[in-house]
């Protein structure tokens, strides 16, 4: 063996010697589901409460052996209030009320070397201490750029006067004794920063006082479980003797009466049969009239939601009880790894990303037909395998014999998605030459199931409005979105720049359309962060190598702006400059500006992780935002190009910690941005005044203004990479849908 190389077989021996059992698909799916549910809680994206996933709809239509087993859970369930020990504080969560609740006496700030840490609030309960704090002013240079160095990983803690230290436990700290009314909040170092680059060992003295009398603490009722209903359809296991039926898959465990509705927290525990597992869809909530009840995920009860549990928040208005809580699922059954076929495949001596082999080869597995349509080599030393399978088949396992994959994805769908299945396998090195591909273990689609539970409040509340009242200034809600009409001829004469998957390819690119979806023109097949020039004649975009390109749409000529690289591009109103977010030496995502001929490129900010909001109408000033660490809030700044002065304007407190996506209107009057629920859209004047909600919980993502004052927004569709595009005039709420478009909105031109 050469001292610098070893054979693949030798390395495979080493790998095999560890004897690692294969990862169970059921475990992978369960954990994936948990992560997605937490993610959806964070995004507050609307789950398919309005409709079943298209895949399930197709399943219900095509499967002839469908058997829906409706397990009615507890119609005689009682909703009993137990001794009140738990309370719910909006924004904090479910708290133990066994001790008097205390709060922070006053916010505490410490500033060192231009960095400010502020403890904004604290809530002390019988079992937990919650501390809310924010950090601003950490320069990009404080974060490591060297491959050999990692930043600070130490977590903050509380230190009591007697020296006792409380480390962080998930979302808070341990309960501070009732006779202790002060503590030091210690931050050993700011997360991910380099040692010595910014001040360390921060100590903020905190003082606690009894909570004010008007602190909102809402009772939390724990559901009492009734005896199983005599007509329930139970599992065939006759040995069950517990009070809870084996088929009692859905439970409501806690109920919170909010100011306009309820929060329900429960569990969903479907039974598994050995060798089978069930892939379930999200929660569907309907009322007694069959109406789908829109809901959101209450972020502040995550900690109280058990693993595998669910929690929803909904408004009471216009609901008929009982509510039905439904989960749907498909039984999947593995046939086993021994059900397999192998075939030879020549990948050639040096496969490269982009290589594709069209095979259209049929295989019979467990008497089902599996057609391998093609194999494609991708980046990350991966191959993707594209199948068309029998409608009864959900997935197949794929391996390249003698090569251990280090990762992979996809793989499911099959009969639920028009028979299409794709699986990818990635390797440390590209397997090459003559290979043996093994296809095995077809997972079969079994019966479809629906689990349903019902819930009613113990008594009807008289403190809630019967009908929802319209909120002033809100142009669109989930309900009104469904009634939107298509846009009339004008403004459909305009253009929209969309980012979408290109037809019959796996690539995403920028495509220009008329607003009615006609006159499609692929601008660039491998670029993103596109933006239309103010006169609609050019598109600037960020190429895959991060360089900024400009395409003239009429001549189709393209140029690269020398020396400029980044994303989040914004044309100046006079079309001569582009503001963008770039990364340079010691800089992580700060704002730059450059002339379109590449001259006078300069950095104008250094807070890190900023986003450009837009330009003043006279092209003299640039508006941008900089986040508090973690996105707790965003500061809005204005930079004057002539004087190079920066002015802090105001702070956005209710923006999403994720992609705020701020956009200044061309007339300079409004900044649109995404709300904290990651779904709503707000407007605010550049001086911070008149902040108000415009789109309520509609999964707003892309935001673009036209010169003529139209606001275009792309709304992410659930479980889809397509969007719904709406066009509105915020003043007066004139609003339309653009049904001919479905990508993500990157630019809008309406003369």
């Amino acid at each position, binding site marked *: 063996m050469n001292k610098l190389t070893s054979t693949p077989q030798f390395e495979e021996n080493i790998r095999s010697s560890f004897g690692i059992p294969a990862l169970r698909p059921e475990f992978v799916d369960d954990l994936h589901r948990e992560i*997605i549910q937490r993610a959806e809680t964070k995004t507050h994206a609307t789950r398919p409460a309005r409709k079943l996933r298209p895949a399930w709809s197709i399943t219900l239509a095509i499967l002839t052996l469908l058997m829906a087993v409706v397990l009615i859970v507890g119609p005689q369930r009682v909703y009993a209030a137990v001794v009140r020990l738990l309370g719910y504080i909006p924004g904090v969560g479910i708290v133990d009320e066994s001790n008097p609740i205390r709060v922070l006496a006053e916010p505490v700030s410490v500033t060192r070397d231009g960095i400010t840490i502020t403890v904004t609030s604290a809530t002390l309960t019988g079992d937990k201490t919650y501390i809310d704090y924010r950090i601003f002013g950490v320069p990009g240079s404080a974060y490591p750029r060297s491959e050999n160095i990692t930043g600070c990983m130490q977590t903050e803690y509380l230190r009591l006067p007697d020296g006792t230290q409380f480390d962080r436990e998930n979302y808070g700290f341990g309960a501070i004794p009732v006779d202790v009314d002060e503590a030091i909040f210690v931050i050993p170092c700011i997360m991910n920063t380099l040692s010595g680059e910014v001040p360390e060992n921060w100590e903020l003295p905190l003082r606690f006082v009894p909570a004010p009398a008007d602190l909102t603490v809402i009772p939390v009722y724990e559901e009492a479980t009734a005896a199983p209903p005599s007509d329930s359809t139970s599992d065939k296991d006759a040995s069950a003797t517990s009070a809870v039926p084996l088929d009692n898959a859905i439970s409501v465990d806690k109920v919170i009466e909010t100011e306009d509705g309820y929060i329900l927290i429960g569990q969903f525990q479907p039974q598994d049969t050995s060798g089978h597992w069930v892939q379930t869809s999200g929660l569907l909530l309907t009322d007694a009239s069959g109406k789908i009840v829109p809901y959101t995920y209450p972020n502040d009860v995550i900690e109280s939601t058990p693993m595998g549990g669910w929690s929803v928040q909904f408004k009471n208005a216009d609901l008929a009880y009982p509510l039905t809580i439904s989960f749907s699922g498909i039984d999947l059954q593995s046939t086993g790894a021994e059900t397999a076929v192998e075939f030879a495949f020549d990948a050639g001596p040096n496969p490269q990303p982009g290589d594709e082999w069209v095979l259209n080869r049929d295989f019979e597995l467990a008497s089902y037909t599996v057609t391998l349509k093609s194999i494609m080599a991708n980046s990350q030393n991966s191959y993707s395998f594209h199948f068309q399978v029998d409608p009864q088949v959900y997935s197949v396992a794929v391996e390249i014999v003698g090569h251990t994959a280090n990762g992979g994805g996809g793989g499911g769908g099959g009969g639920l998605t028009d028979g299409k299945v794709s699986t990818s396998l990635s390797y440390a090195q590209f397997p090459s030459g003559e290979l043996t591909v093994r296809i095995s273990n077809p997972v079969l689609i079994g019966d479809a199931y629906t689990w349903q539970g019902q819930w009613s409040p113990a008594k009807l509340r008289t403190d809630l409005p019967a009908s929802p009242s319209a909120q002033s200034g809100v142009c669109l809600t989930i309900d009104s979105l469904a009634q939107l009409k298509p846009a009339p001829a004008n403004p459909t004469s305009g253009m929209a720049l969309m980012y979408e998957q290109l037809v019959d390819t796996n690539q995403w690119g920028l495509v220009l359309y008329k607003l009615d979806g006609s006159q499609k023109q692929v601008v660039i097949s491998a670029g993103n962060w596109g933006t239309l020039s103010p006169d609609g004649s050019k598109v600037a975009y960020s190429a895959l190598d991060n360089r900024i390109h400009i395409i003239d749409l009429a001549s189709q000529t393209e140029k690269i702006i020398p020396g400029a690289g980044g994303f989040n591009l914004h044309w100046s109103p006079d079309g001569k400059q582009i503001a963008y977010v770039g990364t340079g030496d010691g800089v992580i995502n700060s704002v730059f500006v450059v002339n379109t001929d590449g001259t006078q490129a300069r950095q104008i900010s250094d807070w890190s992780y900023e986003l450009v909001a837009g330009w003043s109408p006279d092209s003299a000033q640039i508006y941008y935002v900089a986040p508090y660490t973690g996105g707790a809030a965003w500061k809005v700044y204005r930079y004057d190009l002539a004087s190079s002065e920066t002015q802090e304007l105001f702070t956005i407190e209710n923006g999403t910690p994720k992609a705020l996506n701020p956009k200044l209107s061309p007339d300079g009057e409004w900044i649109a941005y995404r709300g904290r629920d990651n779904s709503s859209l707000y407007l605010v004047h550049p001086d911070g005044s008149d902040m108000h909600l415009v789109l309520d919980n509609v999964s707003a993502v892309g935001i673009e203004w036209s010169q003529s004052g139209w606001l275009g927004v792309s709304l992410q569709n659930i479980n889809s990479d397509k969007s719904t595009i709406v066009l509105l005039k915020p003043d007066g709420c004139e609003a339309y849908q653009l049904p001919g478009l479905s990508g993500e909105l990157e630019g809008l031109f309406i003369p």
Partner: protein
Amino acid sequence: MADNPTALSSKDIRQGPDELALIQAARQNPIIFGELYKRYVNRVYRYLYSRIGNVHEAEDLTAQTFLAAFESFDKFRQDEHFTSWLFSIARHKAMDHFRRRKSAPAIEEMHEIPVENDPLNAVTQSEQAQAMALIIQAIPEKDCELLRLRFLADMSFPEIARFLHRNESAVKKSFYRLLKKLHDQLEDPNE
């Protein structure tokens, strides 16, 4: 692996399968973290199993690792260092596990713990792999860790160097010396 119930939005994968773009997309849309999870779950599980030696506990720690990573992803800023960050969490989880148990299993125990009797989990080893397993049992823990990171966690040398806080060329030298040593011992068990 089951179908991802939430397909990716167009804005979420800006540069196709490029991991850096995926990480940045996940920062904007937490649901995309599910894609990172799918890329790494096998590697993290293999690494943890090799340290823990028990499927159930390895699964449990794998879950803890990803949930912890997901919850702290807001604070993660070193986009190029995601692998070492994720495996740092995994290693901490493993260390916490051993601390709770007050003892660490001997390396040889990993190979004696029975696998569930399930064809999906069946592990077959060649004679050479079994011979290699015996050799690996006798090497120092730091060398074994190097093998885990390279062959089970599938880390690149820069990633391993970052993870171990060592110089990359030193890691490479150590690694290839180790391979040669294993190779020689396999050829001549009496060496």
